[in-house]
């Protein structure tokens, strides 16, 4: 079977939706007009996935204002804060969560995460959530003395979110963990104990949780952590092939896990050639023998205009066919 293709986060809004949300900000459009367009475009994103042969469907998260906010607003002990921080090295921002008390699940409204009513039929559904380590790293902690306690409480709270979303038919949960591999915040790579703590939080999140899980790393080199990541009791691991130094994988890895290859660059408009994608994936699979390969963008496609994002999805689909035929 050819490699599956998946979205890996927030899909870009169209120029029409962008204009409407801007008009809404200027009080020249009302929210119901925005909602109509949001619904229309969500259907289009789903249709695009159908036409390209996706097996796990995302709703594109078009209403998400940043990658953390729906989780932030579902937790007790966490406030949205007033501070906008830069999302890694992109020119996009997120509202920095502020931890002001013990973190636990609050009022979780699945509608803030997913347009389940639009993902009709028996399709498998995928959702992207910030992993507990990344959420804790990108928050401002004003309550916990011990970071490990914060991390584990976030993981437990996210389990509740996952339960609710499972009830909405979500079967595949992507836990985005760019902070595991994004190094510029640090002088040196995270020490072993910190990595172990992060992985423990992930283990605690997935333990007895319904559904399958992928830990998606991006914006950094996953190679130094790959053996530990492959030990996680989850369905798959995602790596950013634009940042990961494949040559440094010294020996042939074998894994029973799926590997989600971030093989189109969500931060560059140049649409990758499908032949190049297939070839890059083939080179990777010579190094790491994985049970399944999934082709995906390396992160949220919201960093490119929608037209380009859709073209990148098409390139992934063609590459999947080429890979199968090679």
């Amino acid at each position: 079977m050819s490699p599956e293709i998946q979205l890996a986060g927030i899909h870009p809004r169209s120029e029409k939706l962008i204009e409407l949300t801007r008009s809404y900000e200027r009080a020249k459009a009302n929210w119901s007009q925005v909602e109509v367009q949001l619904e229309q475009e969500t259907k289009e994103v789903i249709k695009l996935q159908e036409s390209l042969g996706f097996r796990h469907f995302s709703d594109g998260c078009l209403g998400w204002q940043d990658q953390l906010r729906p989780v932030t607003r579902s937790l007790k002990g966490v406030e949205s804060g007033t501070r906008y921080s830069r999302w890694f090295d992109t020119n996009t921002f997120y509202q920095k969560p502020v931890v002001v008390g013990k973190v636990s699940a609050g009022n979780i409204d699945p509608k803030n995460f997913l347009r389940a009513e639009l993902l009709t039929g028996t399709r498998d559904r995928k959702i992207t959530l910030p992993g507990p380590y990344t959420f804790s790293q990108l928050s401002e902690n004003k309550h916990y003395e011990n970071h490990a306690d914060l991390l584990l409480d976030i993981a437990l709270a996210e389990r509740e979110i996952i339960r609710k979303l499972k009830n909405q038919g979500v079967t595949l949960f992507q836990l985005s963990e760019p902070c595991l591999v994004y190094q510029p915040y640090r002088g040196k790579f995270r020490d072993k104990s910190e990595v172990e703590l992060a992985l423990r939080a992930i283990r605690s999140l997935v333990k007895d949780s319904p559904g399958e899980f992928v830990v998606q790393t991006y914006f950094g080199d996953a190679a130094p952590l790959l053996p530990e990541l492959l030990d996680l009791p989850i369905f798959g691991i995602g790596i950013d092939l634009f940042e990961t130094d494949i040559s440094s994988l010294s020996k042939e890895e074998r894994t029973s896990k799926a590997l989600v290859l971030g093989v189109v660059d969500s931060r560059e408009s140049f649409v990758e050639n499908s032949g190049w994608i297939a070839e890059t994936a083939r080179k990777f699979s010579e190094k790491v023998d994985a049970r399944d390969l999934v082709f995906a963008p390396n992160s949220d496609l919201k960093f490119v205009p929608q037209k380009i994002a859709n073209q990148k999805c098409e390139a992934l689909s063609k590459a999947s066919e080429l890979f199968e035929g090679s």
Partner: protein
Amino acid sequence: MSKLFPVQEIGSLAKPKWRTKGLRQQLSSQDLSEAEVWAEKLGIQDFHDRAKSILKAVDDKERVKRILELSTLYGLRLFETTGVDNDGVGGEQQRVEMYEHVIKAVQGMNLLGHVHSFDNKYFNKGVAESKISRKHAIYVPEFLDVKKYAQRAVKVPITGPYTLVDWSFSGYYIQKQPASSPKARKIGAKREFLLDIVEQIIRPEIRDLVDAGASWIQIDEPAVTTHPEPQEMELFVEAWNETVKGFSCKFSDHTCYPSEIGYKVLAEYAPKLDKCDQLALEFANRDTSRLGLDDNSREGYSDLKHFVDAGFNGEFGLGVTHVHDFTGSVSSEAGQSVGRDLIESPELVRDRLLYATKIVGDPAKIWANPDCGLRTRTWDVAFAKLANITRGAELARESYQ
């Protein structure tokens, strides 16, 4: 300037409705009613004559020219009326925004479409499609209008080369890189693109501005703190030094909203920036909104220590007011929360200036400014914030008398 704690504008103001609409179509006298209210507030004596000439203009180009000139005049007068000492170019009224304004003047680049910045804010992102060159002057026409009307000192904010490249897709420059790892291709493309932007776009523009009389150029580089890797920082320093080489005017850097690492890495490299007389930085956004000169109350300014420790000897343009939505709580002494805005009190501004002085050690090195441009705030809010900055600076000054 010998006055302690001078106040400067830092970027753009919101565009008045009449300015935005007037660029697209003919205005009616009703469209100018808001302008009339502000004319009185800002002392624009010849408003009625100007309004008539705008309403009468049949030629689109002529109308646009008059509108841009008038909105520049309004911006300058707003800063002057609130007591600002350096008025920049009047709130960048002649620019669409800091990125697009430049890209539209670059041959070989194309605007691809909007991408999300935050909430319901977006920016139009460009791509290099061929080797780049300058189509026409970018900031000079605006500066000539500013020179005509400014009653106080001015500086010209320009978008820095590193930011222009970082916010663009490399397109052509990626494709022409030799086959290697995806990461190596990206790095090679960025360097080549960046040095072309410096040589083909930014240096010719600075030359024209200096020839037209500009004596202070603020280089806006918000992107620099997003790539703290040594390789990227060296690239930024190389581009900066190449940009300013051979020019004799004052240069300052404006950077804001760094990633999680804050300003630590910028501080390390700041002493390597040739002719960088001032760093104007955002701080209020990360600070508490309560009065006090203690480290906890002024936690947002702690990064200043890094610059002092690294040996940066220049001035600091201190962000003392927030420029985005505010949803927190504030005591009545520290400010007023009005809708989505925080109007910081003069006392809060004073405390921020005095705390920064404690760290920097020399009050003569501190300027006061908003964190960034006030373009997302209404003119009423911008006016109130700027007026309180100047009052806060006066209070800080009093403590040195």
